[in-house]
């Protein structure tokens, strides 16, 4: 069967009324949290994981994907109207978008962001559908050592290749890897680092760490900044529709943004931010109105927003085909799969095609829903921006603890939540990125398993890791991704990398 047949089957799954409902809940929640400053898609998915124990796998995964896409749409609203991006992939949008809003062109800015996101989401989801089967075929020849090399590459790109310090990125990663070895060893049943505490035998929950660091750590950090005066929300004045000139200036950036964003998201190379910066730079160079850049150029909103959504779809390529998360959100979605006993990867396409293709098809449907939610209903989302901070963060902490209590109502679990929240706060203060902790925690056990398998096959011979051509190439790329930025920073060219920081929340 070809991709089209699978996709049609997927559409049948996705069009079931319950799944449509899950998709709608997902995109609505996703948009809402994307709009709210301070909480991003990773946190929302983590909060909802315990709630979905009762649901069926397809439904909840469709909901998670809807949240991911919705968060990408919603973030642009915040950055255009408030100039505080709700998620880091929207930082570039704030550059031009907020200027447009101040000049009374907030409507067209929101429109070009929403339609650009729609175009990009549609093309990139089709891209996902067509690329995935090829990667699945490629992945079938992967053995343990190739998987291990791939995970090493993901570790390096997530932690040290971007951001302002390789040291702090790697430290975060190793904090995550250390947390990952706590509990019972999967291959031999030995307990490690649990110090006789029964609560630790099952290991540390990814959701607990993610919720603690993203919700509690972030709330503590914001509170500790003291009162810096209220942020000003720009009202949407005039028409939300774009005029002919806006359309003419927007469609090319949409397409360019898509083609920049999708491959970057699909490579194991960190988050959606990188694509948005590249797209912004491209539009700035190609524009016929260079004088408008910095003062509200519509291309500077259209391109990066498209890139942002295209790389969100791209991130699903390694997640679904290889089981390799490259952003914090993808890492938590992987935890969502594992919660149902599913391991994303080439096998999932063979054993559970309805689920995978239903998920991909539901993304197409989610895109249509999001366009409707974000254009006519924009006023509703703008209201969310006016919730006073005390109630907003009180509510965030309520839901943050709700998820943990729902999963395991024990004092110990809440204590861990508090401890990791404090750790997350300290890490924020000292400029340590959070995403590598989450990725290290979830990918650590998988990488260890593959490494030990590879070494068991070779009877302890380490050179076997480098003798397969695919593994060798991947490891060389990983080494380059580690060394090149290190040299760039040492030569004082680090600013570029700081801007590309993959610090997703």
């Amino acid at each position, binding site marked *: 069967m070809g991709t089209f047949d699978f996709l049609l089957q997927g559409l049948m799954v996705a069009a079931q009324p319950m799944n449509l409902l899950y998709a709608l809940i997902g995109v609505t929640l996703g948009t809402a949290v994307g709009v709210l400053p301070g909480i991003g898609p990773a946190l929302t998915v983590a909060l909802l994981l*315990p*709630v979905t*124990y*009762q649901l069926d796998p397809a439904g909840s995964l469709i909901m998670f994907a809807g949240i991911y896409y919705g968060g990408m749409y919603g973030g642009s609203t915040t950055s255009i109207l408030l100039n505080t991006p709700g998620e880091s992939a929207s930082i570039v949008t704030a550059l031009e978008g907020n200027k447009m809003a101040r000049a009374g062109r907030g409507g067209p800015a929101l429109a070009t962001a929403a339609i650009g996101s729609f175009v990009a989401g549609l093309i990139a989801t089709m891209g996902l559908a067509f690329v995935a089967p090829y990667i699945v075929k490629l992945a079938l020849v992967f053995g343990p050592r190739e998987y291990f090399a791939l995970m090493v590459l993901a570790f390096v790109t997530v932690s040290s290749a971007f951001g302002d310090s390789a*040291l702090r990125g790697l*430290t975060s990663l*190793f904090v995550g*890897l*250390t947390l990952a*070895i706590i509990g019972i*060893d999967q291959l*031999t049943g*030995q307990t*490690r*680092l649990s*110090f006789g505490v029964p609560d630790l035998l099952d290991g540390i929950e990814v959701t607990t760490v993610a919720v603690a660091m993203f919700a509690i750590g972030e*709330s*503590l950090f914001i*509170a*500790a*900044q*003291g*009162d810096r005066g209220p942020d000003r929300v720009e009202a949407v004045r005039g028409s939300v529709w774009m005029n002919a000139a806006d359309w003419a200036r927007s469609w090319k950036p949409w397409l360019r943004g898509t083609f920049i964003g999708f491959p970057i998201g699909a490579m194991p190379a960190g988050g959606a931010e990188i694509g948005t910066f590249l797209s912004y730079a491209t539009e700035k160079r190609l524009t016929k109105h260079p004088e408008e850049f910095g003062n509200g150029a519509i291309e500077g909103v259209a391109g990066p927003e498209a890139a942002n959504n295209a790389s969100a779809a791209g991130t699903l390529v390694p997640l679904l085909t290889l089981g390799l998360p490259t952003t914090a959100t993808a890492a938590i979605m992987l935890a969502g799969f594992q919660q149902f006993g599913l391991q994303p990867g080439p096998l999932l396409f063979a054993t559970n095609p309805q689920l995978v293709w239903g998920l991909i098809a539901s993304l197409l449907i989610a895109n249509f829903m999001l366009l409707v939610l974000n254009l006519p209903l924009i006023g509703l989302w703008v209201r969310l921006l006016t919730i006073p*901070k*005390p*109630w907003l*963060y*009180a*509510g965030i*902490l*309520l*839901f943050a*603890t*709700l998820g943990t*209590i*729902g999963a395991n*109502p024990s*004092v110990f679990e*809440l*204590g861990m*939540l*508090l401890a990791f*929240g*404090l750790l997350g*706060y300290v890490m924020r*203060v*000292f*400029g340590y990125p959070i995403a590598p902790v989450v990725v290290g925690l979830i990918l650590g056990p998988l990488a*260890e398993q593959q*490494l*030990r398998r590879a*070494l*068991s096959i*070779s*009877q*302890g011979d380490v050179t076997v890791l480098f003798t397969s051509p695919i593994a060798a190439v991947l490891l060389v790329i990983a080494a380059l991704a580690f060394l090149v930025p290190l040299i760039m*920073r*040492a030569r*004082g060219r*680090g600013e570029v990398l700081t801007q590309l920081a993959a610090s997703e929340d």
Partner: protein
Amino acid sequence: MTKGTHPSTQTRRPDWAALTIAAVLAVIAGLIFWDVSRLIGLAGYSQVGPTTVPYAIACCLIGLAVWTAAEALRGDFPERDHQEIGPAAWIVGGLVAQMLLLNTLGFSIATGILFALTARGFGKRKLWLSVPIGIAFSFVVWVIFAKLLQLSLPAGPLERLFF
């Protein structure tokens, strides 16, 4: 920022906070070595066992500790903004209160207190107002999640009054 871009005038002093981080990393590495040393001898055929990866991680942590210490001594760590401890302490207090009260007073009251203390940390001082609001809001959340979505949230006197 890295060395060489700006001449070090005031940045030469060792950064004690960063040195503490380096020490903590080294301690964690030591903890791993100590814990995993129990398992030695269990590495079966091929020398690869449950201890291999923890040892590798511990060695990397020691490397990172040394690297952190070096940056701390050179003063390469970024400047920290001033942190207000007061508001953050209210939130931590709220979380501790919820943790301790949850199983006796139930979800609504414990979480309501967390809600009010968090709002206090962000500047809502009227606790006599925000505590009832928090408890009422938490109760609504409890009804939705515990009754409709079948999530197991601990019940207390307030919840038992109604259900």
